[in-house]
């Protein structure tokens, strides 16, 4: 956990049920950061509302990286490299989770964790860079990096999510 004056405490909460094959998922939380709302949004959903998100999470955990209609990174964009998004639709409205990847890439040993930062509604075709900018700002913040590192250490001690 880390703290910035008047900006609350950043924490990283991994989702134990969504960790396997060397990949895991987590939420970045901070009650005073209104853009850090992915976890709040997710927890407010009922069982039915979580289904499309779970299917996308699992496709990523299973390394089904061709499924770019459900999730993708931004590997060709220098500034947003390492950012990641999960995509789904609810009643015709495009939904997104934006976050960032931490840890090994596909070619390396070890595990990779996707830290989800914010939820956004998106119906335009082009990527809204404002959302990605928010993700990058948080990813680069010292207290966030510290919170991520702590969570990763805990996960490593548990031997998760390599199982």
């Amino acid at each position, binding site marked *: 956990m880390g703290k910035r004056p008047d900006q609350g405490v950043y924490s990283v909460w991994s989702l134990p049920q969504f960790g396997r094959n060397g990949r895991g998922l987590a939420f970045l939380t901070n009650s005073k950061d209104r853009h850090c709302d992915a976890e709040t949004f997710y927890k407010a959903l009922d069982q039915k509302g979580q289904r499309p998100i779970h*299917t996308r999470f*699992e496709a990523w955990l299973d390394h089904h990286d061709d499924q770019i209609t459900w999730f993708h990174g931004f590997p060709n964009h220098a500034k947003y490299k390492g950012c990641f998004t999960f995509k789904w639709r609810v009643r015709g409205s495009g939904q997104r989770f934006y976050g960032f990847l931490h840890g090994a890439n596909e070619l390396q040993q070890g595990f990779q964790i996707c830290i989800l930062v914010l939820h956004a509604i998106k119906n335009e075709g082009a990527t809204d860079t404002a959302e990605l900018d928010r993700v990058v700002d948080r990813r680069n913040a010292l207290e966030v990096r510290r919170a991520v590192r702590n969570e990763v250490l805990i996960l490593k001690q548990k031997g998760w999510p390599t199982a």
Partner: protein
Amino acid sequence: MTTTTHWTERSIDDFLYKVAADFVGQLELVMLSRPITQADLAKRLNLSPGRVSQIFNNPGNLTLKQVIRYARGLGLKVAVVAYDDNDHANERGPINSEIFRRCWENAGSPNYFQQLSGANAATTKIIRGANLAYQRLYSCTEDRPRKEQPTPPTTASANRHAEVSNESAITTGDRNDARIINDPIRVSRAS
């Protein structure tokens, strides 16, 4: 690590959603590659674009009849596969249907059962051919001091061996083996 029940174990509807969503995911990838829009597919199926969009956004209500209809609309076929992955408590959830499709393609897209055994026979022949190549290599260098003795390939490495070292099989002079590497199914039919 503590084991928990998978979210698809909460209800049949959850399980159905996951299976149906994986199916729709497959359709999306096919449509992306061709490319075909949802509106195009709607035309082919004589449905409104809204109806198709609804199915893609919320596949949880798909019926088997609709599954077939949508697949056929893209010229695809469908198989409903029951399998035992030794996860009887459903801690890991269903396996993505795309994995089954790729396994089927990797096995040479067999469409009758003899082709399955043919694929196995071909694998055995690949191993035999590769072993021969190793033996010949070994006999050529036998009189020279050697640091390491080459290890013959195992079953697990057979396919990779076939992909990366076609040349070693061809140099054995066994044309059948060379053909097997190129097309296991066809050769197994011929033999």
